[in-house]
């Protein structure tokens, strides 16, 4: 029998300090996430310097907890993996420096992983039958990408956002309608009480790349709508605004994804990233895929949010492909997907 490949993975690209132990790329033995959301909520969003400091304080406990929960010792670990971009540079540096030191001191191989590649790979955890090729939509607070997954580690970006990420738009709109931070889950919830077609917000398209996204115009449209009402001295319906805004986002995401599926003829479609836990988006995608006879995949919410299990999964496929990082591995805040 071949020996197990056990990867200890670390993720610290934004405001989640996370570590996980993953066996053979599909079996998550532990998945520890220490969220800093309570602190950043005080500032209405993630403060990079605070995030970096908190990572430094938490990283030892998070890593040791992941090892303990997996009932593993250092000897059982085959390789150490870490997110090295994209993300907040100071935050990334904590995970990268720590992972490098661990790997070096333990004489284990080091594998630097792309954060988005991690999000996409999160789909492999619970869908053991899922294999490339498939189409994937990655939507989170920092990213909105429509990606062709040709093979493990082989990606082609069809479309990306030209301004705000989808999750960013959720946060900003939630703030102006008084729902607070983080916007995604709050809008998702309050939308059940609103009318999604109460207000007709724009669904922008681009002539030169029909798969690109733009969410800042939509955010401005919400602001304009609120301002106009205010000038007339009228009140707005929070749930209607939330539901209508969300519907516009969902329509664009589903529309672009389905167009790409039709054009490229993929039989499998997956979503990933923090926004992928939005219940309205999940339902809409599922229905649209079912209509086309396309198989639909999505990770559980715990694997949609930033986590290290997804990094361990992505690292496994890099490990078996023979990819290794050197001791001079650096954090790359604007790392492109498919680049090394």
């Amino acid at each position, binding site marked *: 029998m071949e020996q197990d490949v056990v990867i200890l993975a670390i993720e610290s690209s934004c405001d989640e300090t996370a570590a996980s132990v993953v066996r053979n790329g599909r079996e998550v033995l532990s998945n520890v996430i220490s969220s800093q959301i309570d602190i950043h909520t005080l500032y209405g969003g993630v403060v990079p310097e605070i995030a970096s400091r908190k990572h430094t304080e938490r990283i030892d406990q998070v890593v040791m907890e992941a090892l303990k929960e997996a009932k593993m010792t250092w000897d059982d670990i085959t390789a150490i993996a870490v997110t090295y971009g994209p993300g907040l540079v100071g935050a990334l*540096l904590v995970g990268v*420096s*720590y992972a*490098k030191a661990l790997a070096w001191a333990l004489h284990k191989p080091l594998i630097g992983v792309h954060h988005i590649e991690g999000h996409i790979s999160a789909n492999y955890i619970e869908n053991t039958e899922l294999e490339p090729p498939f189409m994937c939509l990655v939507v989170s607070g920092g990213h909105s990408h429509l990606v062709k997954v040709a093979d493990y580690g082989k990606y082609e970006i069809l479309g990306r956002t030209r301004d705000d990420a989808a999750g960013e738009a959720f946060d900003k709109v939630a703030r102006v309608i008084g729902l607070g931070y983080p916007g995604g889950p709050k809008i998702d919830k309050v939308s059940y009480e609103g009318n999604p077609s109460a207000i007709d917000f724009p669904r922008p398209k681009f002539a030169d790349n029909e798969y690109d996204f733009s969410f800042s115009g939509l955010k401005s449209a919400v602001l304009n709508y609120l301002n106009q009402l205010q000038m007339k001295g009228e009140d707005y319906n929070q749930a209607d605004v939330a539901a209508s805004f969300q519907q516009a986002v969902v329509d664009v995401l589903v529309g672009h994804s389905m167009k790409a599926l039709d054009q490229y003829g993929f039989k499998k479609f997956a979503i990933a990233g923090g926004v992928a836990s939005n219940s309205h988006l999940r339902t809409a995608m599922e229905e649209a895929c079912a209509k086309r006879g396309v198989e639909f995949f999505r990770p559980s919410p715990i694997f949609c949010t930033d986590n290290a299990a997804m990094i361990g999964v992505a690292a496994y496929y890099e490990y078996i492909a023979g990819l290794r990082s050197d001791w*001079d591995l650096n954090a790359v805040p604007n790392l492109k997907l498919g680049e090394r």
Partner: protein
Amino acid sequence: MKILAIDSSGMVASVALVSDDIVIAEYNVNFKKTHSQTLLPMVDEIVRMLELDTQEIDAIAVAAGPGSFTGLRIGSATVKGLAQALSKPVVAVPTVDALAYNLYGTDCLVCPIMDARRNQTYTGIYSFSRTEDGYKMNVLTNQCAVDIREIIELLNGKGKEVVFLGDGVPVFREQIDELLQVPHTYAPAFMNRQRAAALATLAFEYIREGKTSTAAEFTPIYLRLSQAEREQLEKERATE
């Protein structure tokens, strides 16, 4: 006893392996590359050159801050990872203390100055006094983040000759020469920046005094809040 010492608090990246009263290896780099690219390769180079079994290391010393936030992060996370993997204690030495220790035995006051931007400096005031078997370093002013004029004022009040060192020298030299009324000099190249060998030597004292921590316990000393926290505090004060 062997100490591996790491300082990445400023422009310089410095790594040393010191065994009691012998510096076995020291590697200093003052170059624009980020510490993230230089630090671990330097540690690796030293260990390979010495054919060292890392289990022979008894403790890991680190310049615990203040300093560049990014530099401190890289240094702390690296030291934490090493200490955790090797199950060794961490010796956290204040950066400015370690810098002052470069001038061991001098009769003058020692004033390390690190550039902290906006006319601020990370600094402190130190002296050495004779003991039976050598010199002891005295901390006259604890390391702090202050305006350069404030530390010059303090030194004027002491009325003793001063030696300056640190990456703040090229930044503040003109102001010092203009405002300082006591005799003063600037330390020469081989001792005027962070040296991990000096850090390690000071760390031996910390170990004798039992001042060590675990990887998880150790956090760097920033001496300054983040900008967001500062602004928040100012807002709160304004509304009070």
